[in-house]
């Protein structure tokens, strides 16, 4: 068997035009009254994919998940799972299982009873149920808690029971609604990796809803960034972070410095952008986006791609500005500098603290230069 890592390395069915999507969401709209929670949305999710729906609360991601589970019917459009149209199929007949944000564990049943619940509905033989429950308990490492009631468990244990309960039925798709939302930070980080391992081991398709971008970036193969019932971008975490397709996505994911300007020159595979108030000239590789001279464009650059130094860069006319150090936030592993330009604009720059001690470190009110390379940022036309 190939290692899971090598599977993951080559797993990219979305780039394969011949690949058939496992879940096809086609022009789905869901209206509550006049309000469109999900608005003409189309998405393809592939078999064995770990897919994240990411967005702020109210963006429609949970409604979309509930439509996959069958708790809501689309107002328009259709959803296909494994080629089957899901219209009119009630939740209890769908080949999907959902893990609820509140876990929704049955308080009157033991851990065992909760995990066995779905299997009993299938009419599985008693011996098989026992074997499956034991297998699930082992999978989530809760063997010694089988006889406990949910209220006798910790938050992390409850989360695992909920997970075991919905994978016990071997669904084709597992839907997870903020699966880690109720856990504390440290437990959340551990559980992220457990979830990824589990998904790989079981070979299931996961669709997870989250508002936590770090969570989505860590776990997912692909992320759909949602806003106002629409998908803004669907891409791998690295693409979403490094090549956002719009100002909204650039701003939503991670930290960013956003500049507004006009394309001053497009030549030799480079774009020059003039940013008026600071009188800045940004020169950037044009490989990713095309634009015409005079077109208003945005430019996004992540803080960690900006250098801060007392020394003037070799060519201060391009991708450089100077200002004074306005704020310093020391995080241990890295330091975030806020540099205030003459125009009053604050530029965020982050630098890794690669050495333990620095002679004469940058301090408040120091006059510094910020600069970055031509491939550090991205031009945004939307």
């Amino acid at each position, binding site marked *: 068997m190939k290692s899971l890592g090598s599977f993951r390395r080559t797993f990219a069915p979305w780039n394969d035009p011949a690949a058939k999507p496992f879940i096809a969401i086609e022009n789905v709209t869901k209206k509550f009254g006049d309000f469109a929670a999900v608005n003409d949305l189309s998405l393809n999710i592939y078999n064995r994919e770990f897919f994240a729906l990411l967005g702020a609360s109210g963006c429609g991601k949970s409604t979309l998940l509930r439509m996959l589970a069958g708790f809501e019917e689309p107002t328009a459009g259709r959803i296909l799972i494994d080629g089957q149209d899901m219209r009119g199929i009630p939740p209890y007949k769908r080949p999907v299982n959902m893990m609820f944000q509140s876990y929704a564990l049955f308080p009157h049943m033991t851990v065992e009873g909760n995990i066995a619940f779905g299997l009993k*509905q299938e009419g599985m033989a008693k011996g098989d149920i026992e074997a499956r429950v034991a297998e699930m308990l082992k999978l989530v490492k809760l063997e010694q808690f089988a006889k406990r009631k949910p209220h006798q468990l910790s938050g992390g244990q409850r989360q695992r029971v909920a997970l075991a309960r919905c994978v016990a039925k071997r669904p084709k798709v597992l839907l997870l609604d903020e699966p880690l939302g109720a856990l504390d930070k440290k437990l959340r980080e551990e559980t992220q990796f457990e979830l990824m391992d589990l998904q790989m081991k079981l070979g299931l398709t996961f669709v997870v809803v989250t508002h936590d971008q770090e969570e989505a970036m860590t776990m997912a193969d692909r992320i759909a960034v949602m806003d106002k019932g629409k998908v803004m971008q669907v891409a791998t975490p690295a693409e979403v972070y490094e090549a956002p397709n719009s100002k909204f996505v650039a701003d939503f994911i991670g930290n960013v410095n956003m500049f507004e300007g006009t394309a001053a020159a497009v030549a030799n595979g480079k774009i020059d952008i003039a940013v008026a108030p600071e009188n800045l000239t940004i020169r950037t590789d044009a490989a990713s986006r095309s634009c015409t001279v005079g077109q208003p464009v945005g430019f996004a650059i992540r803080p960690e791609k900006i250098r801060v130094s007392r020394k003037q860069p070799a060519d201060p006319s391009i991708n450089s500005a100077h200002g004074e150090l306005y704020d310093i936030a020391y995080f241990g592993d890295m330091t975030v500098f806020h540099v205030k330009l003459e125009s009053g604009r604050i530029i965020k720059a982050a630098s890794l603290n690669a050495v333990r001690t620095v002679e004469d470190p940058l301090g408040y009110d120091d006059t510094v230069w910020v600069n970055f390379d031509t491939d550090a940022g991205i031009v945004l036309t939307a």
Partner: protein
Amino acid sequence: MQKLISSVAGRLVIAVPYLWLLIFFLIPFVIVFKISLSEVAMAIPPYTPAFNLSAGWQAFADNFSQLSWDNYIWLLEDPLYYKAYISSVIIAGVSTILTLIVGYPIAYGMARAPATVRPTLLMLVILPFWTSFLIRVYAWIGILKPEGLLNQFLMWAHVIDTPLNILNTNTAVFIGIVYSYLPFLVLPIYSALEKMDYSLVEAAEDLGCPPILAFWKITFRLSMPGVIAGCFLVFIPAVGEFVIPDLLGGSQTLMIGKTLWNEFFSNRDWPVSSAVAVILLLLLVVPIVLFQRAEARAQESEK
């Protein structure tokens, strides 16, 4: 000193309910129990022996030796009484089940209603209490009698040709009990259902459970503490109910509350009616104990 005062105050606070029960329950019960062991007599009070503390210890002891279980033996021998007990329990039991059938959907509907209208619905359930219980039962006479509103309506609608004879039957008693005790059943079930997380039902459906089964296995099962509380709140007073069988029931409606009233007021037989009351109390203590155990279990599971 401060500690002493607070510990005394703490004990006093605990003592209040005990004192209350002692004065208003245990002492009256002992008096009733003592009367039930006495004999009927043409006197004031109408039984003997009557204890007189001023007569001294010897007289007290003499009186004590005159007490007997005769009235209880009488109750066992005369089929009227145990028939009345059995009939009361059956009528109360049937009424409780009917109340549950009517009340559960009401409670469920209230709990599933939008949060904004719930206080209004709750108010509507409590509203009948603003009118005297007696008046409301009398009103049912006006509705159920042969020339009453119900029959008039049904005849107007050509559902029936001759008036239904409902008043002065057990049916009227059931209607009266269901109507009067409905709020006592709806409120505890509503409060159990209202705090239930609806995503549990969705989870059950998601795991392959059709809605009706999900209702039975999850919703109904989790509302059991409320159902049990509500049923006891209906059953216990219904067993001893007097007004409803007296006003709505017929001569054949045999209920222990009516028997007790007859013994006390018509026959002026205080000792026998006291014995009837003591047995009724014992009959109800068992369900009350069961009820409290259910409550304790419900509280434990909420921890």
